[in-house]
């Protein structure tokens, strides 16, 4: 039953890691954290022209329980930081984070007392996207970088 029926007789070998990483990297569902102008570019990233569906990432969940990649799009102020961190904590492991644009990465032009100077102050960021705002293809690039990262992960067990 299952895979044998389509492959016919015979077998193939792989590592569980390779299989889970393949599955995970091609279904990285984003948790959109749209806070400012970058969010508009993030919508374009999911829209038909740039089509994140090609990479299995079109499913914006708007729910932390079913997402894998948090895209922090926009500037983060101190009040919002607590909400973002709470949503991040509610996302199931394994999870990844993209800091989209200058503001989320470094505070950007908002060099002031109210804005957190980079969301890496309270989140573990995997990919930083430069630009203000970055183009949707730059976000796709960050997504592909994260896919590369997932594919090389030892997610199940380490070889000893």
């Amino acid at each position: 039953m299952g895979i044998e029926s389509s492959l016919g007789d015979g077998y193939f070998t792989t590592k569980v890691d390779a299989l889970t990483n393949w599955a995970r990297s091609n279904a990285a569902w984003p948790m959109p954290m749209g806070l400012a102008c970058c969010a508009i570019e993030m919508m374009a990233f999911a829209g038909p022209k740039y089509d994140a569906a090609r990479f299995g990432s079109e499913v914006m969940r708007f729910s932390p329980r079913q997402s894998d990649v948090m895209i922090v799009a926009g500037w983060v102020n101190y009040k919002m930081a607590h909400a973002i961190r709470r949503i991040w904590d509610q996302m199931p492991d394994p999870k990844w984070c993209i800091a989209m644009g200058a503001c989320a990465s470094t505070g950007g032009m908002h060099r002031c007392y109210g804005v957190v100077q980079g969301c890496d102050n309270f989140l573990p960021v995997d990919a930083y996207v430069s630009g203000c705002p970055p183009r949707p293809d730059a976000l796709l690039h960050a997504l592909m970088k994260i896919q590369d990262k997932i594919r090389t992960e030892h997610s199940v067990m380490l070889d000893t």
Partner: protein
Amino acid sequence: MDLELSDTLKKVIDGLSDQFSDSFIEVYQSTGDTFVRVEADAVVDICKYLKSTHHFIYLNDLFGTDRFTSEERFEVVYNLISLRDRERLFLKVRLPEEDPRLESVADIWKSASWMEREVYDMFGVHFDNHPDFRRIFMPEDYEYHPMRKEFPLLGIPGSIELPSTTPDTE
């Protein structure tokens, strides 16, 4: 300096200087607008007078400025508009650096409530008899007033709490 006043504004200025001659400090014009500077203790009476007699029913804006290192450091500015007469008048009040304190005008214009809270939050100017006197932007326990000139642009490190990076165990 000669003032170029419209007939209605002329009436307003004359009325102010007659009725509140003790509190009236100066009137001047800049970039096409008219500014009147008055004593702080008369501001509620003057606002009531402007609203009831001269129809300044719309408080367009109320904000603070920091004239750092000057005498009477803080300034609160009332931007009044008469919708009927299509006139705009700025009312200015200067306050000392030590315990800047002013009477609230929230009874006269409801919208003053939030704006006075903002002035308090950013500059530390207290408004007496305010209906709901709290901070509006910064956390309740925040010790500083960020728009004061001596406040560092990037804030005071550690003065606002960032989320804990270890997950809650709720």
